[in-house]
């Protein structure tokens, strides 16, 4: 399929694919096994200028948008859905600054993220604030020229590895979700530490940790937007980064599909390659159909957002749901095509199946996404 990418987007995709094939694929199984954070791969990404594809040019980036970010995530995820997350998680932590940061904040943080010198992370989820994001307990209290943060964030991608964290905390409990505010917190700030590193089913090369704030004092200049805007900062950010999760799912599915096709042509049973059996052919055909449909929806959603659209929660949720459900199905089928070998860790598809699962869960479960979609639908239809 020709998606009519610009010359620049095509170059980004090819370069990311080259890095995935030459640098990531050879280490993906090992990093998964060891739960090793891909510092070396991030260095390669930094040297190749890919870290800043979605960051405005005036802050050292390439000036691309969500599509450019998605293209990189997709290609990296083809080789490893965990390693790609060091890049994608940084995007999630950076968008609050791109969208709501003032010029000073952008000048201070974006160039280092664009050059790949620093990684970022986003801290919203807590033990009691998952799908119900309004359950955030972490507090920020203004004391003179500083905010004092207390509380614990949970399951934070790039936690402990990132240098820049955008964190949502409660500044006014009585106002509910309107009492949340978003802050930039730098690694190394006294009172800011990291809890246990999670032992996960998949995306094991990605680091997931707690962020612990104990009387952590940050300058009040680190407030993003205004007090009370935290929930909006989070929601607007997630609307933009969900296509990133979708792209991760898309890449994982594509990678699994390629392994399944390759294997089916090599594996001989009953005297012929299993790709000659209709039972296998139909599985492969279904995989290809779903992946292509997923890609079309993801790219088009990205383009819609990049066109300057104002309201795209529904589309963003749709592409995340569709691509992640597709990834789960395709990777499961890939294991089936590889049969017993597919179930073994020496072969790359069982990992892809484990990696795929999280895309149905994080940045809003697919059930929450369906709520968002349905709500928007009802709103639209009540206007007619």
């Amino acid at each position, binding site marked *: 399929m020709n998606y009519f990418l610009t*010359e*620049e987007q095509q*170059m*980004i995709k090819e*370069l990311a694919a*080259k*890095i995935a094939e*030459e*640098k990531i694929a050879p280490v993906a199984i090992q990093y998964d096994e060891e739960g090793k954070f891909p510092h070396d791969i991030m260095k*390669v990404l930094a*040297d*190749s*200028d*890919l870290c800043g*594809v979605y960051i405005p040019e005036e802050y050292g980036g*390439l000036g691309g948008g969500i599509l450019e970010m998605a293209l990189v995530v997709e290609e990296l995820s083809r080789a490893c859905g965990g390693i790609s997350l060091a890049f994608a998680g940084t995007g999630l932590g950076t968008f609050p600054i791109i969208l709501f940061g003032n010029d000073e904040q952008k000048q201070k943080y974006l160039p280092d993220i664009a050059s790949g010198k620093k990684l970022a992370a986003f801290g919203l989820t807590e033990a009691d604030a998952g799908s119900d994001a309004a359950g955030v307990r972490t507090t920020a209290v203004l004391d003179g020229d500083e905010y004092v943060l207390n509380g614990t964030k949970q399951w934070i991608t790039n936690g402990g590895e990132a240098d820049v964290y955008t964190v949502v905390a409660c500044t006014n409990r009585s106002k509910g979700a309107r009492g949340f505010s978003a802050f930039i917190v730098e690694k190394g700030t006294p009172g800011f530490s990291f809890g246990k590193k999670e032992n996960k089913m998949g995306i094991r090369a990605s680091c997931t940790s707690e962020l612990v704030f104990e009387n952590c004092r940050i300058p009040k200049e680190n407030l993003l937007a205004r007090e009370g805007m935290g929930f909006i900062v989070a929601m607007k950010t997630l609307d933009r980064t969900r296509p990133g999760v979708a792209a991760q799912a898309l890449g994982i599915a594509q990678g699994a599909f390629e392994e399944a096709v390759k294997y089916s042509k090599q594996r001989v049973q009953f005297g012929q390659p299993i790709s000659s059996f209709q039972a296998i052919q139909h599985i492969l055909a279904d995989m290809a159909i779903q992946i292509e449909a997923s890609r079309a929806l993801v790219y088009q959603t990205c383009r819609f957002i990049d066109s300057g659209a104002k309201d795209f929660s529904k589309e963003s949720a749709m592409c995340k749901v569709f691509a992640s459900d597709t990834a789960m199905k395709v990777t499961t089928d890939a294991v089936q095509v590889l049969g017993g070998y597919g179930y073994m860790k020496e072969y790359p598809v069982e990992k892809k199946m484990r990696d795929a699962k999280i895309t149905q869960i994080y940045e809003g479960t697919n059930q929450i996404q369906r709520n968002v979609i349905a709500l928007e639908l009802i709103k639209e239809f009540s206007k007619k």
Partner: protein
Amino acid sequence: MNIVVCVKQVPGTMEVKMNKETNTIIREGVEAIINPFDTYAIEEGLRIKEQTGGRVTALSMGIPAVAELLRSTIGLGVDEAVLLSDRAFAGADTLATAYALSKGVDKIGNVDLIICGKQATDGDTAQVGPSLAEKLGYPHTTYVRKIEEIRDGYIRCQRMTEDGYEVVEMPLPAVITVVKEINEPRLPSLKNMMRAKKAVINVWTADDIGADKNLCGLKGSPTQVVKTFVPVHEIESEMIEGDAAEQAKKLAEKLMTMKFPVCG
């Protein structure tokens, strides 16, 4: 530091086709890649430049299509690329190639260091680097695995040998040929790829570099390839299974039936 890296286009496959009349490699219609050893030369050139400043120029002699390969070297960070391309260069052996390259280097001018891969994967001669040095009257060191020090007018490097390495000092300008142990080549960067897209690849003819056409191409090549052929592998092999004693027994039986005098 002004660095020239010599780059050769080689077939990206092991199935090399020959022109039966001229006994030269058919390069048209075959996937072309940069000679893998030259990628280490490019990387080393870029590293020296990052350390000392200056320029890296990629230089090749070949058919016009080689310009696209040279473009990819700009994507890696090379500043400028020069292709020597002229019908007069066709059919060159290593001597005529070295001559043409030396004239190219003369025209580039003010060169401090020339880096070549240790050999090309198609011809495997390893002659062009040293011949180029002779043509230019520069000292050279082959099989360099590490540059220990490089500064104005001076280079000290480790030359790989079968059982270790030698430390060689040379005045600059000089030529080195490098082995794959010297570094790990980088991948292109987006900014350089964009620069490459727009870059103009300089294409110089024999006249442009003031080359004597009698010393170029087939005419200037004392090497006469009389015949080429692809070796046919007709040896049948058989694996003998079992533990050592069993294998030895089976092997002995087999040899005995083969009526070799020594086994008689």
